[in-house]
């Protein structure tokens, strides 16, 4: 656990970047710092590895004050990923990943084996290992950045807007891969973003900060969407928070109707389309029984006939739901 106790950062010119921040960042979960620019989210993050030193207050990791030891040693035990990856342009991909093990003096064989294993783990083709960063796309560079952060198997990983410089499709892939990776590795991740959607998607907990470095709310995303603590948080979350809240509600126990006769199925029971005047109309998005209400809603909304199709893990249609039935579930 990382704990902030009344942490303040004031610059010599008097600017207060972080103002008496107190919060507990639980171990093995993703905690997201989110807020508009000037809210001190990056400053807060960088105070954890002491690349920015706080002015007052205390930061502890598992109860130990981070100022107890030497900052360089502290940093080698904390993974760090930044926007644009910040890869070393003069080192090959595999050498970039091997940075921290080398600093720690691991033997060469073990270092290289670890680096290669990590490249594989973050979904990079091993053929890229001997390339230089300039030869990679932005998304690939960012994967290398994550691999470099994980190389010495740190308990904590800090990520400072790591995905904000890549295009939306790649960003979504990287977000999903981070979640998949986190299921395996269970690191304590502190993630900074200005994008509330990213915060809600990735965070087990979200700390919303306001300009001037004050904590506005610290809560799991579902709680944040359901009960924003004040007008600032509510407006920051955005207009469609009601719809987004559906992401956190499970689509089980829906009043599904049986499969209608005009839904055409293939031999495996997978939906092909709706029969309309001798033609097949696509079914649109489908949803799974264990999925989110948002997926169910989306399925109904994208259906040309106003009926969402529920499919099981094998893709076999198990039932349909229409607007009226879904509205009944959504009504509080």
């Amino acid at each position, binding site marked *: 656990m990382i704990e902030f106790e009344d942490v303040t950062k004031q610059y010599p010119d008097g600017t207060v970047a972080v103002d008496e921040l107190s919060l507990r960042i639980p171990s093995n979960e993703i905690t997201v710092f989110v807020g508009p620019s000037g809210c001190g989210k990056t400053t807060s993050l960088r105070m954890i590895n002491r690349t920015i030193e706080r002015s007052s207050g205390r930061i502890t990791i598992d109860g130990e004050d981070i100022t107890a030891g030497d900052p360089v040693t502290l940093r080698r035990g904390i993974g*760090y990923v930044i926007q644009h990856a*910040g890869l070393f*342009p*003069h080192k*090959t991909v595999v050498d970039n990943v091997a940075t921290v093990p080398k600093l720690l003096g691991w033997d060469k064989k073990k270092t290289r084996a670890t680096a290669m294993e990590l490249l594989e783990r973050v979904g*990079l083709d091993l053929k890229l290992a001997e390339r230089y960063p300039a*030869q*990679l796309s932005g998304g690939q560079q960012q994967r290398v950045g994550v691999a470099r952060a994980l190389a010495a198997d740190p308990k904590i990983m*800090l990520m400072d807007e790591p995905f904000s410089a890549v295009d939306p499709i790649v960003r979504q892939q990287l977000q999903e891969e981070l979640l998949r990776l986190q299921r395996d590795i269970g690191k304590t991740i502190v993630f900074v973003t200005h994008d509330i959607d990213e915060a809600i998607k990735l965070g087990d907990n979200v700390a919303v900060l306001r300009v001037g470095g004050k904590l506005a709310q610290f809560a799991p995303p579902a709680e944040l969407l359901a009960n924003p603590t004040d007008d600032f948080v509510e407006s920051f979350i955005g207009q469609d928070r009601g719809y987004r809240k559906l992401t956190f509600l499970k689509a089980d126990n829906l009043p599904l109707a049986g499969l209608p006769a005009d839904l055409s199925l293939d031999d495996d029971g997978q939906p092909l389309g709706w029969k309309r005047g001798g033609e097949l109309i696509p079914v649109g998005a489908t949803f799974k029984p264990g999925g989110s209400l948002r997926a169910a809603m989306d399925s109904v909304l994208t259906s040309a006939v106003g009926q969402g199709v529920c499919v099981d893990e094998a893709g076999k249609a198990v039932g349909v739901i229409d607007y009226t039935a879904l509205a009944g579930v959504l009504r509080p």
Partner: protein
Amino acid sequence: MTWIGDNTALIWEQLREHLYLALVPMLLGLLISIPLGYVATRFSWLANPLVALGGVLYSLPSIALFIVLPAILGTQVLSSVNIIVALTIYAVSLLIRNVIDGLRSVPEDVLQAAVSVGYGTLRRVVTIDLPIAVPVIFAGLRVVTVANISMVSVGAIIGIGGLGELFTTGFQQDFLTPIVVGVVLSLALALVADILLVGLQRVLTPWARVISPVKEA
């Protein structure tokens, strides 16, 4: 041509001396300007005055410097130390700008990443900052090397000038061959030194030649 055959030993000796007088200041200049340049990037208010001072020093006439230095350094007028010190001053005054520009060419996110993953300052400067600054520093180093090789000859005026001494010999004896030999060898030396530096830079910076982004995998 018989002059060349009769004086091979002398020519080799002058060539060797020329090379020594040109290269030692280049290396000393590098050794001095790197820490100086690093300090100037740490305390950025120092950078402009240092570059300006370099400009002033470089504009000092070399003959004047060769003659004044013995008085300042307390060396013999005919000591090669004078030449080495003078050319080192020129080397530093040119290189300081390139070292500062080179260190500043290291992207901010790269520096931040290096500090954040746990590089100490010295190790970072030696293994991250300087290698990335190599292309910019080498641009200056090439100019310094060629300039030094040409300026060594001026030292012949005070009696230590490598191949330049072939010029004085030629003028004194009103004899063209030593002058031609001196000019050709100076040019050849400058050319070879420049080619070697380009080669060394290519070896040191394999990463600077690969700009061919690969499609998203």
